[in-house]
C-alpha cells in the first residue's frame, strides 16, 4: 500500500488538541491513509476524525521540543495540535502535507470508503436524464433527447444525453458544437411549465474578430422561439470583456445575425477574483480582534456580498425574462461552466417550486452542476487558506450555495431543506467519502468508473435518518415564483458558513430546537384533536342511532 511510505510516524501519544469553544483534549494521534484521528484515552471516543483531503494548509512551529501544527481546513475550521517531540511533529506534518495533496484521484478516499449503511436507493441512478426529461416531455412536444454526445466526442464537458429542440438533428448539433466554446452547443436547461418559455445555456460563440457566423447555431436557438416572439441572450460578462474575448477567438452573438434576440450583458466575476474574495472574507471573519471599523471595511473589501448581489440579480433577470416577459433566454459566459450555471440554477430556484424540495434540489445539482460539467475537481482543489497561486480554484459552487441560502432566508417556509443541507453540500464538494463531486465532467467520471468504484453522496443523504437532519420543519409547498430582494440591506453575511467556527452557536441552536419542538407539538396536538373529534363524532352517531332507531 502506497500510503505506508508517506506515513513515517503513524501514532503519537500525549498530543493536545485545541479547537475553538471546546476545552483542550489530550489524546493519541493516529494517521491513516485518509484520516487524521485523535482519540482521548479517557473514554476511547474519537475527538477528531479529519479527512486529509479536507486539509487546505498547515503551519508548524516549535517551542523547544514541543511542536505545534495548525491545520486549516477547507471548511474554514482551524485546529491546533501540540505534539511532543520535534521528530514526531515534523514527520506528522510532512505526512499530512503529502496525504492532503495526493495527485491521483484514484487514491482519494471515495475509492477506499466502504459504506457502513445499507444502500436502499443507489444515488448514481437517482437522477437519470431520461427521468428528468419525462417531467418536461409531457408538456412539450418541441424538445427531444439527443445522444449525439454519447462518446463525449462532440463536447467533452457535456453528458452523453442532452435535451435539444426537436427540429434540430444531430448533424446540425455537431456543426453548432464547432461554433461554441468547448463544443458547448445550446441545450435546454429549464422549461417553464406555466408558459412554455425556456432557459438554454451554452459556451460563448466563436465569432472571433472577423464576425464568423454559423447558420445552424442561429437556426438552433431560433427554433426555441414561438412565432413572432423574441428572446433574450444573457451574457454573464460585461460588454467590454465579451469584446475582448473576440481577440482570442470567442465573442458574442451579433445583433445582425440574431435579430430575434436581445443581448444583455451582466458582469459576474470569475476564477482568481472570486478566490481572492473568499480568502479575504475568511481572513476577516477569523480575526476576532478587529474593531468595528476594520471589520466592516474588511467585509466590504472582500467583495463577497457584491458577488452574491451580482449573481442573484442576474438570476432574477433571467427569471423575470421567463416569467414576466414571457420570453425565452439563452445564458452563457465564456466556457459556460461557471457563472452560467450559477445563473441557470438560481433562476430555477426562483421559478420552479420543485427545485426547492430536497429531491428537486439534488436533481438540480446533478443536472445543472455535475452533468453540466462544472469542473468541481479544479474549482474545489483548494479553499480559503491556499497560499500558492493556482489558476483554477474558485468558490463558484459556494457562491451558488450562499445565494440559495439568501433566498432561503427570505422565504424560510418555501424550502423543504434547511441551512444544514447547504452546509453539508459545501463540505462534500471540497472533501468527501463519496464520489459524487470527483472529476471535472461526466466523461472524467465515466473514465474513473465512479459508479462502480465509489458510493454516491445521494445514496447516503437520501436515507430517512439522514434526511431528517436536513428537513426544514417550516416547509409548506409554495407554488409561486419567489422574488428575493437583492438590496444590500437584505443580503447578510452567511454566518452559518463563515462564522461557524468563530462563535458559539449554542443559544441559536437551542432556540432552533425550541422552534422545532413547538412545531412538533403543534402536529401532535392537531393529530390528537382530530382523533378526539372523530371519537366524539362516532359517539354522537351512535347516540343518534340510539335516539332514532
Amino acid at each position, binding site marked *: 500500500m502506497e500510503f505506508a511510505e508517506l506515513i513515517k510516524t503513524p501514532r503519537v501519544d500525549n498530543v493536545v488538541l485545541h479547537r475553538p469553544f471546546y476545552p483542550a483534549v489530550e489524546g493519541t494521534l493516529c494517521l491513516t491513509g485518509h484520516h487524521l484521528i485523535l482519540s482521548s484515552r479517557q473514554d476511547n471516543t474519537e475527538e477528531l476524525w479529519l479527512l486529509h483531503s479536507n486539509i487546505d494548509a498547515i503551519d508548524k512551529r516549535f517551542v523547544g521540543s514541543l511542536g505545534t501544527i495548525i491545520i486549516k481546513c477547507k471548511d474554514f475550521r482551524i485546529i491546533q495540535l501540540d505534539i511532543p517531540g520535534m521528530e514526531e511533529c515534523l514527520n506528522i506534518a510532512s505526512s499530512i502535507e503529502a496525504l492532503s495533496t495526493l495527485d491521483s484521484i484514484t487514491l482519494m478516499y471515495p475509492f477506499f470508503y466502504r459504506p457502513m449503511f445499507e444502500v436502499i436507493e443507489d444515488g448514481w441512478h437517482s437522477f437519470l436524464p431520461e427521468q428528468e426529461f419525462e417531467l418536461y416531455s409531457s408538456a412539450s412536444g418541441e424538445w427531444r433527447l439527443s445522444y449525439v454526445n454519447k462518446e463525449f466526442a462532440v463536447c467533452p464537458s457535456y453528458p452523453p444525453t442532452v435535451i435539444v429542440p426537436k427540429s434540430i438533428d444531430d448533424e446540425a448539433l455537431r456543426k453548432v458544437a464547432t461554433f461554441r466554446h468547448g463544443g458547448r452547443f445550446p441545450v435546454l436547461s429549464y422549461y417553464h411549465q406555466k408558459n412554455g418559455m425556456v432557459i438554454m445555456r451554452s459556451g460563448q460563440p466563436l465569432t472571433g474578430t472577423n464576425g464568423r457566423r454559423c447558420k445552424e447555431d442561429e437556426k438552433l436557438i431560433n427554433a426555441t422561439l414561438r412565432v413572432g416572439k423574441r428572446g433574450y441572450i444573457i451574457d454573464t460578462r460585461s460588454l467590454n470583456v465579451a469584446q475582448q474575448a473576440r481577440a482570442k477567438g470567442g465573442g458574442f452573438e451579433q445583433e445582425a445575425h440574431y435579430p430575434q434576440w436581445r443581448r444583455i450583458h*451582466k458582469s459576474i466575476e470569475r476564477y482568481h477574483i472570486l478566490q481572492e474574495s473568499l480568502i479575504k472574507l475568511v481572513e476577516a*471573519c477569523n480575526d476576532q480582534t*478587529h474593531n468595528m471599523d476594520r*471589520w*466592516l*471595511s474588511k467585509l*466590504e473589501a472582500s467583495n463577497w*456580498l*457584491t458577488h*452574491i*448581489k451580482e449573481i442573484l*440579480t*442576474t438570476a*432574477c*433577470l433571467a427569471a*423575470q425574462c421567463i416569467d*414576466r*416577459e414571457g420570453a425565452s433566454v439563452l445564458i452563457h459566459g465564456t466556457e459556460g461552466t461557471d457563472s452560467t450555471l450559477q445563473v441557470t440554477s438560481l433562476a430555477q430556484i426562483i421559478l420552479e417550486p420543485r427545485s426547492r424540495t430536497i429531491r428537486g434540489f439534488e436533481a438540480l445539482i446533478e443536472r445543472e452542476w455535475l452533468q453540466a460539467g462544472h469542473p468541481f475537481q479544479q474549482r474545489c482543489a483548494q479553499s480559503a487558506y491556499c497560499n500558492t497561486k493556482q489558476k483554477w480554484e474558485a468558490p463558484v459552487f459556494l457562491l451558488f450555495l450562499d445565494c440559495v441560502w439568501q433566498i432561503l*432566508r*427570505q*422565504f*424560510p*417556509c*418555501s424550502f423543504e431543506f434547511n441551512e444544514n443541507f447547504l452546509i453539508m453540500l459545501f463540505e462534500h464538494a471540497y472533501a468527501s467519502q463519496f464520489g459524487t463531486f470527483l472529476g471535472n465532467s461526466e466523461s472524467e467520471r465515466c473514465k474513473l468508473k465512479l459508479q462502480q468504484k465509489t458510493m454516491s453522496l445521494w445514496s447516503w443523504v437520501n436515507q430517512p435518518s439522514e434526511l431528517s437532519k436536513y428537513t426544514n420543519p*417550516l416547509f409548506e409547498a*409554495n407554488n*409561486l415564483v419567489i*422574488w*428575493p*430582494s*437583492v*438590496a*444590500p*440591506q*437584505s*443580503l*447578510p*453575511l452567511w454566518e452559518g458558513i463563515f*462564522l461557524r467556527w468563530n462563535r458559539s452557536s449554542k*443559544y441559536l441552536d437551542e432556540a432552533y430546537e425550541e*422552534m422545532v419542538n*413547538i*412545531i412538533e407539538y*403543534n402536529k401532535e*396536538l392537531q393529530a*390528537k*384533536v*382530530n382523533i*378526539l*373529534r*372523530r371519537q*366524539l*363524532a*362516532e*359517539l354522537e*352517531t*351512535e*347516540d343518534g*342511532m*340510539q335516539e332514532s332507531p
Partner: protein
Amino acid sequence: MEHIRTTKVEQVKLLDRFSTSNKSLTGTLYLTATHLLFIDSHQKETWILHHHIASVEKLALTTSGCPLVIQCKNFRIVHFIVPRERDCHDIYNSLLQLSKQAKYEDLYAFSYNPKQNDSERLQGWQLIDLAEEYKRMGVPNSHWELSDANREYKICETYPRELYVPWTASKPIIVGSSKFRSKGRFPVLSYYHQDKKAAICRCSQPLSGFSARCVEDEHLLQAISKANPVNRYMYVVDTRPKLNAMANRAAGKGYENEDNYSSIRFQFVGIENIHVMRSSLQKLLEVNGTKGLSVNDFYSGLESSGWLRHIKAVMDAAIFLAKAIMVENASVLVHCSDGWDRTSQVCSLGSLLLDSYYRTIKGFMVLIDKDWISFGHKFSERCGHLDGDPKEVSPVFTQFLECVWHLTEQFPQAFEFNEAFLLQIHEHIHSCQFGNFLGNCQKEREELKLKEKTYSLWPFLLEDQKKYLNPLYSSKSHRFIVLEPNTVSFNFKFWRNMYHQFDRTLHPRQSVFNIIMNMNEQNKQLEKDIKDLESKIKQRKNKQTDDILTKELLHSFHPESPTLKTSLCFKEQTLLPVNDSLRTIEGSSPADNRYSDYAEEFSKSEPAVVSLEYGVARMTC
C-alpha cells in the same frame, strides 16, 4: 386648525422609495389636525402622525408636479408628487407648523382620548410603581435607605423625588455632594444586586476642574463603597472618551481624581456624546436612503457612519458593569457629563444583563421608567417633541433599544418580548400620543399634570401583550440569569427592521417568528380544544354506559363498523386556517396596524417584483 390651509389634494403620486423606475401610486392626500393621510386608488391608507415628521422638504418642480419628501422619526420616508405647486406649498407650510409645536399642551397626548374614565386612566399610571421596584431589588435594607432630601426637588430638579442612598449618607453630605456635581445630580442608587450586595449608582460629572475637591462628595462615594459588605473598592465609570472628560476640566467640570477618593478605581469607557450620535445616525440614514445602493457603498457607509461602533461601545460599557458586579462583587458608580444620556444607557443595559426581570415585558417597562423617565433623560428634547434646539435632538434611547435588540439576537430565548415590542416603544417615544415620554424630567411632568391630562402607554402595551410575546422565551432556564454577550465586531449587524421598518420590500417575505408565534397561540387553543373534547367524550360515554343495554341491542342490529360510518359523515377538519394564510403572507406582527397595509400586497398570487429594478432596465422587446 389655523395651520391647515388645504385639507385635501387629489391626484397626488406616492413614489416607491427604492424603485429606480419611478413606480408610483396615485391617490388623495388629506390633512387632519393630527395626521397626514394618503389614500391610494386601491383604498390603501397610509397614516402619518404629524409628530412623527422629522423633516419636510420641497424639491425642485418637475414636469409631473412638485415633489414633497417627508422624513419621519420612525424612519418612514415618503415621497409625494403634488400636481400643483400652490397645493404643495400649502401642505408644506402646514406640515412645517403642525410637526413642530411650541407648547406641550398642543401635543397629541392632550387631545388623545382612548375612551377611558378617570379612574381607569389613573390605574394605568399606577401600573408601574417604582417604590415597588426598589422593594423587589431588596431596598431599603440595612445598607441603603430612602432619602427625603429631594422630596421637594430642592436639591436636584431633574431627579425624581424618591432617591435611595447609603444609610450613612447624611443630608449635609448629600447637599454638599450635589453642589459638587453638574446640575446637582449627586450619586444615588440605580440598581441593587441582592445576591452580591453590590450596587449600580449614577450621578453626573464632578465639578473638579483641575484640582477642586469636595469632602462631602468623597464621603458619599466612600459611603457607597462601604454599603457593599463584600468588596470595599468600587469602580467609578466615566462613560465619556477620556479626551472629552479632560476638556471638561477646563470648564470647571471633569472627573474624579483617584488620589482624592479612597478605594475607587476609575475607568473611562469612551462613548461619544449626543452630537456625535446624532450625526452618526444622520449619516446612516443617508446611506440607507440611496437608490440602487451597492454593497460596497452600504458597508463603507455603515463604517463611516460609525453607528455600529457606537452601539458596541455602549454594550461594552454595560458588560463592564455586569462583570464588576458578578466577577469582582464590586459596586459601580456611573456618570457621563450630566448623567442623563450615556449614564442612562449604561445603567439600564447593565441591569438588564444582570437581572432577568428586566427582560420580561413588565420588567422592561419598569426599567425604562426607572433609569430613563424618572432619572430625567430629556425625552422631549432628545426626540424633538417641541420646536426647540435641533442640537438637543439625539438618538440616545434608540441606541439603547438597538443594544437590547442585539441581545435578543444573541440570546433568542432570554427575552419575554419580541422585536415588535421594541419597535412599538420606539414608535411611541416620538408619537406624543401618551404622556410617558413628554417633558424632560419628573418635575416638569408633574407641572404639566400629565397623569391627569394624558394616558400612560404601558397599560395599552400590556393589554396587547400577545403581539409582543417571544414564542421561544424560556423563563425557567437558569442559564439566562446573567447574560454574557459576545461583542466581537461581527456580532453587530445592521438593524434592518428598525431603520427600514416601513420598507417592507427589503424584508424577508415570510417571517419565521410570526409563524412560531401564531403556532404557539394555536397550541394553547388546541390544548383547550382537547380538554373540551375529552370532557364531551366523557359525558357521552357516561351517558352511554347508562343505556348500555339499549346500545348493545342496537349494535346487534347494525353490525357494520362504526368507523366506516363516521368516515362518511365526518370530514377531517382543517384546523385554524389563519395559520395557512399567515405562512404565505409576509408582514410582522399581524395585528399591528403599521404593518397590515403590506399584508395585502404580499397575499396576491405573485409577490411583487421588488428591488429587482436594479438589474432590469428597459425590458420591452
